[in-house]
C-alpha cells in the first residue's frame, strides 16, 4: 500500500492542457490552486513544468483475474498497473473463477482493492449466474453489498437471449444500474478467430463478422429504449456499430459506449504474423473501422475509452493462434495510445480526453468521487502526464503481472509521471510507489 500522503505542492502543471498552475494537495483533497506561499510550507514539491494534469482516469472495463487466475493478474498487481497508467478507479469484470455473481465475491474483490490501495476497485457483477446466460444472478444483492455494484456485465460472453437481456435491463432500473453488454451474436461467431474479411480469408482463420456485433447492439438499443433503461456497449469495434449507436442516441435511447485503445490503433492485418498477442475479443478490425471509431469517440457517439485490460500468462499466448487466449493488457499504455491516436491527430483536446477517460466513465459507473473537476475542495485524484517523453513499449517492463501488450516495440508519445489517489501518490517520478 502506498504511504506517502503528502501534502504535495505540484508546481507548474497544466490542468487539462491549459495554463500552468500550482496545485496543493492536502488531506486527500485539492486544498488550493496557486496557493499562498505560506500555506505550502512542509509540502513535498513536485516540479510539474510541462506536464499535463488530468483528473485520475477511470476504467470501466478491467480484468483483474482474481479470484481464480492469480497467475495472470491479481487485484493488487492489476491495481498497481492501473495506477501506473494514471487510473484512480477501475471496474473489475465479473468473469473470474468463481464468477462475480454473488455479493460474497464482489465484496471480496472490493476488499482486496481497498487493501491494495492503488486505486478504487469497483467490481462489476455478472448479469447471469455463472455467466451461463440462463438465469439472472443476484443483481440486487450485489447492488446492496458493501461493493455497491452499479455495473453488470457477462463480459466475455454476450447476453444473447433477448428476453433475458430485456429482464436484466429492466431489473437494474431499481437502483440506477447499467447493463454493459458484450455484443457478440454467438451463432455467427462459432469458432471465430479474427475479424472476417480479406485477412481472415487469406489466413484461413474462421471469421468474426462485424454484423455479429452490430446486430446485438441494434437489438439492445431498441430493447433499452423500449423498457426505458440504461445500456452500455462494451468495446465497440466496427464502423457499423458506431453508426447504429449514433442512430440510437439520436432517437433518444439512453445508451453509452466504449472503445478500447487497441481498437483505436491496431488493425487486423497484424494477424498475418499469427502471433496471438493480437488475438482479442472483439477482434482487431480494418483501417476503416479504426477511422470510424476515432471519429465516433471525437464526436461523442462513443462516450469513453475503456481498456479491456486482459492479462494472460505467457503460455496462453505462446501457442498456435487457435488455442491462444483472447485479450490484451492495456492499463499502462491507454493514455499514451489515446494521446497518439486522438490528441496528436487533432481529434480530441486534453479537456475532452479528461471527459472520455475520467468524467464520463465515472458517470456511467455512478462513481461520485472520481472524474471530477480539478477544483479546490475536490478529491485529489490526479494524474500528471508528460506529453513530450516518448516511451518504447516493452511487455517485460510492465508493472502488471502479464506482458501481453500488442503495442510492444511501438513508441508512444508520452508517459505518466505521477498519479495521486485522494492525495496519496501511487506513482511518482514515473515509478510505482
Amino acid at each position, binding site marked *: 500500500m502506498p504511504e506517502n500522503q503528502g501534502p504535495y505542492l505540484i508546481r507548474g502543471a497544466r490542468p487539462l492542457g491549459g495554463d500552468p498552475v500550482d496545485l496543493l494537495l492536502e488531506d486527500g483533497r485539492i486544498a488550493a490552486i496557486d496557493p499562498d506561499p505560506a500555506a505550502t510550507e512542509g509540502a513535498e514539491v513536485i516540479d510539474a513544468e510541462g506536464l499535463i494534469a488530468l483528473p485520475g482516469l477511470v476504467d470501466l472495463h478491467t480484468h483483474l483475474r482474481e479470484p481464480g487466475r492469480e497467475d495472470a493478474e491479481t487485484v493488487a498487481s492489476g491495481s498497481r498497473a492501473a495506477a501506473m497508467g494514471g487510473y484512480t478507479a477501475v471496474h473489475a469484470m465479473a468473469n473470474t473463477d468463481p464468477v462475480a455473481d454473488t455479493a460474497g465475491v464482489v465484496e471480496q474483490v472490493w476488499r482486496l482493492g481497498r487493501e491494495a490501495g492503488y486505486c478504487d476497485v469497483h467490481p462489476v457483477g455478472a448479469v447471469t449466474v455463472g455467466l451461463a446466460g440462463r438465469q439472472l444472478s443476484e443483481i440486487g444483492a450485489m447492488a446492496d453489498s458493501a461493493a455497491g455494484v452499479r455495473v453488470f456485465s457477462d463480459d466475455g460472453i454476450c447476453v444473447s437471449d433477448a428476453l433475458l437481456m430485456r429482464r436484466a435491463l429492466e431489473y437494474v432500473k431499481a437502483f440506477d444500474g447499467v447493463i454493459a453488454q458484450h455484443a457478440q451474436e454467438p451463432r455467427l461467431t462459432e469458432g471465430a*478467430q479474427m475479424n*472476417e*474479411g*480479406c485477412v*481472415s*480469408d*487469406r*489466413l*484461413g*482463420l*474462421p*471469421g468474426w*463478422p462485424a454484423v455479429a456485433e452490430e446486430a446485438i447492439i441494434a437489438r439492445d438499443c431498441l430493447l433499452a429504449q423500449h423498457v426505458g433503461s440504461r445500456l452500455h456497449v462494451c468495446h465497440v469495434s466496427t464502423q457499423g456499430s458506431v453508426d447504429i449507436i449514433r442512430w440510437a442516441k439520436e432517437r433518444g435511447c439512453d445508451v453509452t459506449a466504449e472503445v478500447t485503445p487497441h481498437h483505436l490503433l491496431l488493425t487486423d492485418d497484424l494477424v498475418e*504474423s*499469427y*502471433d496471438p498477442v493480437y488475438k482479442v475479443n472483439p477482434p482487431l478490425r480494418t483501417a476503416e473501422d479504426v477511422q470510424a471509431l476515432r471519429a465516433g469517440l471525437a464526436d461523442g457517439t462513443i462516450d469513453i475509452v475503456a481498456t479491456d485490460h486482459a492479462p494472460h500468462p505467457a*503460455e496462453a499466448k*505462446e*501457442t*498456435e*493462434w*487457435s*488455442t491462444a487466449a483472447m485479450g490484451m493488457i492495456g492499463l499502462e499504455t491507454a493514455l499514451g495510445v489515446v494521446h497518439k491516436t486522438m490528441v496528436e491527430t487533432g481529434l480530441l483536446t486534453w479537456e475532452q480526453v479528461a471527459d472520455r477517460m475520467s468524467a464520463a466513465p465515472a458517470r456511467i459507473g455512478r462513481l461520485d468521487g472520481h472524474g471530477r473537476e480539478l477544483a479546490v475542495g475536490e478529491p485529489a485524484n490526479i494524474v500528471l502526464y508528460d506529453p513530450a517523453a516518448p516511451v518504447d513499449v516493452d511487455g517485460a517492463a510492465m508493472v502488471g503481472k502479464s506482458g501481453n501488450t500488442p503495442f510492444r516495440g511501438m513508441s508512444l508519445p508520452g508517459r505518466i509521471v505521477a498519479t495521486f489517489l485522494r492525495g496519496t501518490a501511487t506513482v511518482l517520478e514515473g515509478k510505482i510507489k
Partner: protein
Amino acid sequence: MRHLLSTGDLDRDEATLILDTATELAQVGDRSVKKLPTLRGRTVVNLFYEDSTRTRTSFELAAKRLSADVINFSAKGSSVSKGESLKDTALTLQAMGADGVVIRHSASGAAHRLANWVDGSVLNAGDGTHEHPTQALLDAFTMRARLGRLEGLRVAVVGDILHSRVARSNVLLLTTLGAHVTLVAPPTLLPVSVHTWPCEVSYDLDRVLPETDVVMMLRVQAERMRDSFFPSVREYSRNYGLDGERLGRMPAEAIVMHPGPMVRGMEISAEVADSPRCTVTEQVANGVSLRMAVLYLLLGGS
C-alpha cells in the same frame, strides 16, 4: 528460401525452380538405386498432429530417397497427446537437432508459429484451413507434366473453397505461374472476400467446364451439410459433382484432378474417378518427386 510456409511466398522463379528440380528428381524413381546421397546426415522430423498417412508417407519417402534420417513424430502416443504445447515440442525437436520439420496441424498458422521457435527449416504440410503448399506445387507439376505448360492454363477449382487449404495454396501458386483460376462453389462455401482474390468466381459449374483445361475437385465433407452449407448431398452433387456427362463437356485434352481423399458420389462419380483423364494416382507419384525437390532446396544447401 528457408521455410516453405505459403505458396504466396514463392515468386515465379522460385516456384519454377521447384518444379524443374522435381522434374529432374522424378527420374530417381525409375532407377535401379532409388536413392541419392544428398541429405546424408541430415534429420527430417515429420510432426503430424493430424492423421494423414498419405502426406506423411510421401514426405517420408521423399526424405529417405535423399538419404535423410527421418523421425515420425505423431500426435498420438507421444507427449503431444499429454498436453505438451507446440512450443515445447518444437524446443524438443530443436534439441534433437532436426534440420527440417514437416508439420501437419489442424490450426491455421501452426507452421508459421513453429518457424519462430526452431532453427531448422519448416515445411508446411497443411495447416488448418490455411495452406498446403506442397500439394499445390505437386498439382502444378502434374498439370505441367500432362499439358506441357502452366502459362494461360484455365483451371477450375470446385468444391469447399472456404475450408480448403489446397484451394488457397493453388490460387496463389497458379496465379504466380500464369494460369487463370476460377473457383466454383455454392456461395456458402466461398470466403466472403473471395472477390478480392486474384481469380474468377462462378456458381455455375456447367458454364465453366467447357472453357476449362483442368478441373480440380475438392473433397466435400458431409458434416458441412449438417452445418447448413448446402441442403443435401444429392443437391450438392447434382449442382457441383463431376460425373461422366459433365466430363464429356470439357475440352478433349482436359484433365481431372483431386487432392484426395475422394468422396465418390459426392463431388466426383466413380466413372470420372477411374477415368484415364483423372490424375489422382499421378498426383500421388508426383508428390514424392516434388517433396524431394522441396527438401533438397531447403535442406541441401548451406
